[in-house]
């Protein structure tokens, strides 16, 4: 018996069809994976099931009855809960307040005052029932990402849903946390819940699911049972052609002895005065890619901010080819030969409401060929833009339009073009392929390797473990603001790095502190 079924479900945003006559069916007590590239329309589909979006046409059947879902509360009333890709938690509130948000317990039915004690007790019971690890009185802003996800799941379980939708739940977890989550999910399935998981990590699909639906450009292109398929087959369905799943760093390590980038003893604190970077030291040689691995929230963000001039150090020294650049501003760093692919492309890399041309010069808008006597040379800028678009195969609808209209991959390519074309000697690449489809990943990875092969240095920071492992010549792992170990990607396994990322040091990590 199918518990959820959609019939020709369609969603249009203006002229753009995000979901095109989607037909899927989920059986009771199964784990269903939905895969697809970024922007394929997975979240849109789930948002319609959860009532956040209204379908343009088509039907949703719940328990084989046609149902109109008028918003999240309605969905929950129908026993359907969702954990979003971007958590919907309130950082300044506590765990219990977040779980009970919208369903607060009052002193009595007439009293307007909330009963704090009763609420905490209730949440404690819930946590015990599902054997999650959480303290109900912690503030969300103080707990780990994994913990936040557990809060999101509990939020739904408290509301007694029997269908749970998880949108890219593993993106921010360590391999160990992923395993734990999978155990939790399988346990929930055993207790009778139905689970839909959205992901584009094919390895996880194979490990977790009972059946898979593949969506491409808003259409269902495949519906298979997990046991009948393979990663390669799924990848081909997703992209529509054969793809190299990961570009391998096959070239021999030609790293020279010359140190291109040296970071010594760097520390910094966050707004609350907590030391979020503790004595970070490492160096990158010419012709080398140094990967930084770690679970998000362990200081990589701060490290990147410090290294790209967005944050100041409290201590330590950074130098590029021997030149001290500690606490220099981003423009000075760029003048010193640093190229930057920032962590969040729409926050730090691009301005979505400015034109493509304007974005093509950002960060390099003072160089003489675009700026003379303080005035911008519009003609040269347009030429530059046209060159980028051609050389990097950036697909733009309206060449005079804003960057916000570009797809994620193409937007990222603007940054890649801008930074590589300025001939840096050192590149800091932070999450270079986040939110980019498999085809573009291939392209970007190749660019980075080529850059390295020309004898330049690269610092690669990514939460995507496979990316770090396949590209880097050396890997350092960050945990709680410190470097917990350095290893060679060729000598360690995925799970060994995973342990290190979780703070558990094993003996293979040579010289835990460098």
């Amino acid at each position, binding site marked *: 018996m199918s518990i959820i079924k959609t019939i020709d479900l369609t969603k249009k945003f203006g002229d753009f069809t995000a979901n095109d006559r989607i037909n899927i069916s989920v059986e009771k007590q199964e784990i269903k994976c939905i895969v697809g590239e970024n922007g394929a329309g997975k979240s849109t589909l789930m948002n319609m099931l959860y009532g956040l979006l209204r379908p343009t046409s088509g039907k949703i059947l719940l328990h084989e009855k046609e149902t109109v879902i008028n918003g*999240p509360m309605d969905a929950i009333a129908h026993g359907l809960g969702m954990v979003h890709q971007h958590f919907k938690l309130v950082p300044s509130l506590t765990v219990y307040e977040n779980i009970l948000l919208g369903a607060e317990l009052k002193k009595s039915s007439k009293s307007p005052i909330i009963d704090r004690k009763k609420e905490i007790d209730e949440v404690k019971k819930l946590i015990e029932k599902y054997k999650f690890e959480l303290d109900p009185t912690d503030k969300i802003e103080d707990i780990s990402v994994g913990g936040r996800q557990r809060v999101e799941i509990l939020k739904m379980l408290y509301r007694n849903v029997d269908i749970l939708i998880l949108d890219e739940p593993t993106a921010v977890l360590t391999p160990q946390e992923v395993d734990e989550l999978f155990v939790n999910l399988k346990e929930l399935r055993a207790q009778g819940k139905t689970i839909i998981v959205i992901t584009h990590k094919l390895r996880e699909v194979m490990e977790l699911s009972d059946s898979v639906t593949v969506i491409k450009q808003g259409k269902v292109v495949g519906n298979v049972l997990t046991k009948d398929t393979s990663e390669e087959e799924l990848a081909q369905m997703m992209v529509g052609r054969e793809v190299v799943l990961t570009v391998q760093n096959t070239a021999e390590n030609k790293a020279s002895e010359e140190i291109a980038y040296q970071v010594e003893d760097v520390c910094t604190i966050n707004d609350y005065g907590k030391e979020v970077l503790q004595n970070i030291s490492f160096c990158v040689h010419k012709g080398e890619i140094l990967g930084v691995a770690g679970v998000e929230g362990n200081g990589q963000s701060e490290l990147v901010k410090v290294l790209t001039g967005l944050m100041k150090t409290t201590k330590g020294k950074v130098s590029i080819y021997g030149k001290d650049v500690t606490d220099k501003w981003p423009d000075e760093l760029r003048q010193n030969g640093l190229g930057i692919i920032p962590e969040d492309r729409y926050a730090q890399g691009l301005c979505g409401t400015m034109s493509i041309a304007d974005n093509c010069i950002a960060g390099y808008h003072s160089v003489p060929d675009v700026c003379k006597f303080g005035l911008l040379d519009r003609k040269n800028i347009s030429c530059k833009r046209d060159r980028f678009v051609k050389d990097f195969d950036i697909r733009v609808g309206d060449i005079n339009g804003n960057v916000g209209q570009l797809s994620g991959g193409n937007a990222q390519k603007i940054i890649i073009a801008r930074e590589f074309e300025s001939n840096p000697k050192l590149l800091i690449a932070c999450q270079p392929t986040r939110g980019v489809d498999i085809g573009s990943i291939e392209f970007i990875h190749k660019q980075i390797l080529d850059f390295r092969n020309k004898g330049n240095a690269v610092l690669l920071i990514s939460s995507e473990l496979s990316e770090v492992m396949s590209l880097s010549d050396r890997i350092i792992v960050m945990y709680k603001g410190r470097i917990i170990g350095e290893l060679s990607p060729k000598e360690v396994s995925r799970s060994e790095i995973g342990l290190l990322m979780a703070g558990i040091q094993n003996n293979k990590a040579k010289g835990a502190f460098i």
Partner: protein
Amino acid sequence: MDIIGNILYDTIYHSAPIILCVIGGIFAYKANVLNIALEGMMLIGAFVSTLTAFMTQNIALGVLLAVLAALAFGVVFSLMGVTFKGNVIIIGLAINLLASAIAKFVLVRMNTSNITLSFMNVADLKLHIPVVENIPLVGSILSDHPLITYISFLGIFFMWVLMYKTRFGIYVRVVGENEDAAKSIGLKTDFYKYAAILIGAVCCGLAGANLSTERLGLFTNDMTAGRGFIAIAAIYCGQGSPTLSAIYAVVFGLARALSVNLSIYAGPAAGLFDVIPYVIMVCVLTVVSVLKHKNNKVRGFKNE
């Protein structure tokens, strides 16, 4: 001793309308809507309360209509700002201008430069608090204020409860902090923004009635004289906490009281005393901000 008593009494006197604006304004602040129309809402409250009292000789009705008038402005503000998503700073400025223009227009039509309520004596509106009244110093400070002044101080506690102990308060804060989270649990975010703005309007209406009818028995053009902006400064200094922001309102009241009471002794420099409250506010704001950012190592201004 006497002068200290006077200064403290005046502190309460000058603080009351600002506190009302503050405790009303914090909800909008928490809901992430910058309401700079506090000034205009207070002015229209002051105007309508006096006008109504003048025409009906009924002060309670005056206060009621003042609140309704401020509410009407609140509705306009919400409609333009929340429903139509206009720029709230501009809307706030417009409302401030409009309130002043409407009052002036009506006064011109009434052929007068101000409305004086000669049928009543504001001294009769003062409440004598039975026991407190007789305590030396304390009595002279805490007793003999009009009703809305007491309401303003009690309001601090009430708003604190509303903000931190009830669903409504939590939801307003959630809407301000993470609108997506609010939507995901089915909150009508616009409803909470409206409510936050309208609470502010009610309080501003009361503040206006307090300022004009209740304490002076008269309305003159532009009589709010920037008090709404002071309230905004206090809200910023206190970061939207009802108690903390109200304390800043009192600080301003104290500065005003000092400037009025001490200017007698200041000789020719007395004119500069009026600068004190504003300068104090800027200094306090600077100190608060420096403390808040003392650990800030991140460059830039994205959060402001």
